[in-house]
């Protein structure tokens, strides 16, 4: 991309009177991701605004389904859960999502990925994904994957847009944004309503549904050094299998399920001392309600006061407050960043009823204070060599009788960069404290759970020449105390260390002025914590973006093979966008066009052992879907 731009810049310098091409070149060179991305922070994947628009990325899932070394997964409630380990409802505590400078968070689960891992992208300018235990200066707690979403800004998007979409199964989406700039401040407001309907899966006991209806409001107001953001979301729909897993032969197919979710956050970002110091403050409140009916076939639930459960109802409340202060110091060859961060979490999952009879969970604790400090030193050895040293420590202080915890992360990075070559080496040791849902869940929680730790080394090498980039990424990780479900349906730390290996080869070619060809081949192997054979997983991605006259055309093929306990899958998606005028666009997109994408298996009854022969429901994670959209800018 850089070479293309430099080439275009040269062309424009030669022919400076061509104001049209000068403007076009300026638009490409002004891509906001060029100003926000941090190559030293991890193994980085960037989806620019142009990528998102030309690929017709409707929700975050559309890019996560081809994520290097991972495949997009959802839990048994139908919520995003990238690292899902069914029947545990949520396993992605270390996948952290940020909207601009503040983390989207739900306190019970440790990260907000389950609420935001599939949110619509119409107000997002670009996405940065950092893999490989990324830099500590992103947040209060450690992460394996950091997804940074940057909203559109009034500086570039003054004016408005309205978009209408219709899709398979009667789905629809309507949204609008408007932004403007005054002398002293700018503002951006966005509202969306999404009606996302999916296939119905008929099982003995009931129909499984995953339809969702959601609304979102996002608004920001910014001055030169300060910004204030308000983010409100409300969702309701079907909860697929529901959070419960039944004991005994009757299994746990519900006759119906539902969920409702509400989220509100208010956050600020301020910069001081010539942008060398920053302060982020955010508050969030969330509420989730789950209902499952089991009629006429009742189920048996671990932890329930009755053997025959016909109905289940639970409301979970959460509050978080986060404050983060960072300061950078420039000392000769050293760039030192010091950060102090505080996070408060409150969670209430006491409101549970079985057969309409209240059955409080009486959790051991419901508040957590996290104090986090980090220090990072970036040492520029020479023009081509950089060393990054980081250390971070958290203290988890919990109320009532729950033990406190102390976790530490260490990270070493070496980066070599020349005109054509970039090599990045990252060695990290990270400890992850158990999140509340793992310790106090009435179904599988274990208050004695220890922190899980990861030692990892990642090597990335990339070579760029003649508008072609080749990248190789090799990774090895040794996981200790991995949280796993045991045969009594309780989360336990794995008794043995688990090794994981990953390799990824990527090739990107830019041709003509705006066309792009991408190929990825990924391999992942993970030792079994149960002494079974290793899990091996391959994934291949072939993607092409073309612009012909007023048409933007997108083709993508994602192939998943390997030991995923289900059939292999391939997902072919394609789209065409017709730019009728500069302000009026029509789009047609097909997702999983041949209905052959990877499927996922969910337990239909609590396994006594995690044997692959246990009864499961198998459904596609990415369903076949066709969508028609129109958008108008004003």
């Amino acid at each position: 991309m850089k070479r293309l731009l430099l080439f275009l810049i040269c062309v424009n310098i030669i022919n400076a009177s061509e104001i049209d091409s000068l403007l076009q070149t300026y638009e490409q060179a002004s891509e906001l991701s060029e100003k926000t991305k941090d190559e030293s922070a991890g193994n980085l994947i960037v989806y620019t605004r142009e990528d998102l628009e030309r690929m017709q990325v409707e929700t975050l899932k559309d890019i996560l389904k081809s994520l290097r070394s991972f495949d997009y997964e959802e839990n048994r409630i139908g919520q995003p859960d990238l690292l899902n380990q069914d029947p545990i409802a949520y396993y992605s505590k270390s996948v952290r999502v940020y909207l601009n400078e503040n983390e989207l968070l739900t306190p019970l689960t440790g990260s907000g990925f389950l609420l935001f891992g599939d949110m619509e992208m119409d107000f997002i300018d670009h996405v940065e994904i950092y893999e490989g235990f990324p830099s500590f200066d992103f947040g209060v707690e450690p992460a394996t994957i950091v997804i940074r979403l940057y909203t559109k800004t009034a500086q570039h998007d003054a004016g408005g847009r309205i978009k209408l979409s219709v899709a398979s199964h009667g789905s629809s989406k309507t949204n609008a944004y408007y932004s403007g700039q005054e002398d002293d401040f700018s503002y951006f407001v966005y509202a969306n309503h999404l009606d996302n309907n999916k296939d119905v899966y008929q099982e003995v006991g009931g129909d499984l549904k995953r339809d969702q209806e959601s609304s979102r409001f996002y608004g920001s107001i910014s001055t030169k050094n300060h910004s204030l953001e308000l983010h409100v979301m409300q969702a309701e729909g079907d909860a697929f299998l529901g959070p419960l897993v039944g004991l005994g032969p009757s299994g746990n197919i519900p006759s119906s399920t539902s969920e409702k979710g509400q989220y509100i956050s208010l956050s600020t970002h301020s910069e001081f001392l010539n942008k060398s110091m920053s302060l982020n403050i955010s508050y969030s409140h969330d509420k989730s309600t789950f209902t499952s009916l089991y009629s006429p076939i009742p189920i048996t639930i671990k932890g329930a006061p009755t053997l025959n459960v016909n109905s289940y109802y639970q409301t979970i409340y959460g509050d978080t407050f986060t404050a983060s202060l960072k300061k950078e110091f420039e000392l000769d060859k050293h760039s030192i960043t010091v950060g102090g961060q505080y996070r408060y979490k409150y969670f209430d999952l006491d409101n549970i009823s079985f057969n309409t009879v209240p059955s409080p969970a009486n959790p051991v604790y419901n508040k957590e204070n996290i104090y986090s400090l980090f220090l990072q030193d970036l040492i520029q050895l020479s023009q081509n060599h950089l060393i990054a040293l980081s250390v971070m420590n958290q203290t988890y202080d919990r109320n009532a009788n729950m033990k406190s915890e102390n976790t530490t992360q260490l990270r070493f990075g070496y980066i070599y960069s020349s005109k054509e070559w970039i090599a990045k080496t990252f060695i990290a040791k990270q400890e992850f404290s158990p999140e509340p849902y793992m310790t106090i869940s009435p179904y599988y929680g274990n208050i004695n759970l220890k922190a899980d730790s990861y030692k990892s080394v990642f090597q990335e090498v990339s070579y760029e020449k003649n508008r072609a980039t080749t990248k190789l990424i090799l990774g090895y990780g040794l996981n200790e105390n991995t949280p796993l479900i045991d045969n009594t349906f309780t989360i336990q730390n794995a008794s043995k260390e688990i090794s994981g290996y990953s390799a990824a080869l990527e090739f990107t070619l830019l041709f003509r002025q705006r066309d792009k060809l991408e190929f990825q081949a990924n391999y992942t192997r993970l030792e079994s914590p149960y002494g079974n054979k290793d899990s091996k997983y391959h994934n291949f991605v072939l993607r092409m973006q073309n612009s012909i006259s007023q048409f933007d055309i997108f083709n993508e093929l994602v192939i998943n093979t390997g030991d995923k306990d289900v059939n292999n899958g391939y997902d072919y998606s394609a789209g065409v966008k017709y730019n009728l005028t500069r302000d009026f666009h029509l789009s047609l997109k097909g997702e999983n066009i041949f209905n052959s994408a990877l499927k996922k298996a969910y337990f239909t009854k609590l396994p006594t052992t995690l044997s692959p022969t246990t009864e499961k429901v198998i459904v596609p994670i990415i369903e076949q879907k066709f969508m028609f959209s129109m958008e108008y800018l004003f």
Partner: protein
Amino acid sequence: MIKLFLISLLITTMYADDVKLASSIFNTIVSSITHKKNAAVYLYYDIESVSRYPDKLQVVKDCSIADVVLLSSIKDIPKECESEILFGTRYSHLKNKNVIGAFFWQKGRPNILFYRDRLAKHHIKLDKSFDKYIENE
């Protein structure tokens, strides 16, 4: 800043490029307005791209000797500047009838817009490559 080590090699260059490109666009616009190679511009208050990379433009500190006044704000424009050729950097600057045109971001893309009557009032004839950027008010 060392944190931007890689970016200094790969990215900051790009950032510099977009600032330089913005300056190139201002140079082209001012040259077309004035038909001068080294036109004098007065910046009210500041326009980063031009102040950092003036290229062929002469940045002057006195409005009265400027060929064009480039505006980052239309609030409290000094009286001595009001009679000069005013050019804005936001669409909203065109609300001021003395502003002949603007170079601004809108709808996710950079735009240039001149109003025909306002150009005529100052007897300005832009070269043909700007025809598509001239509109009736």
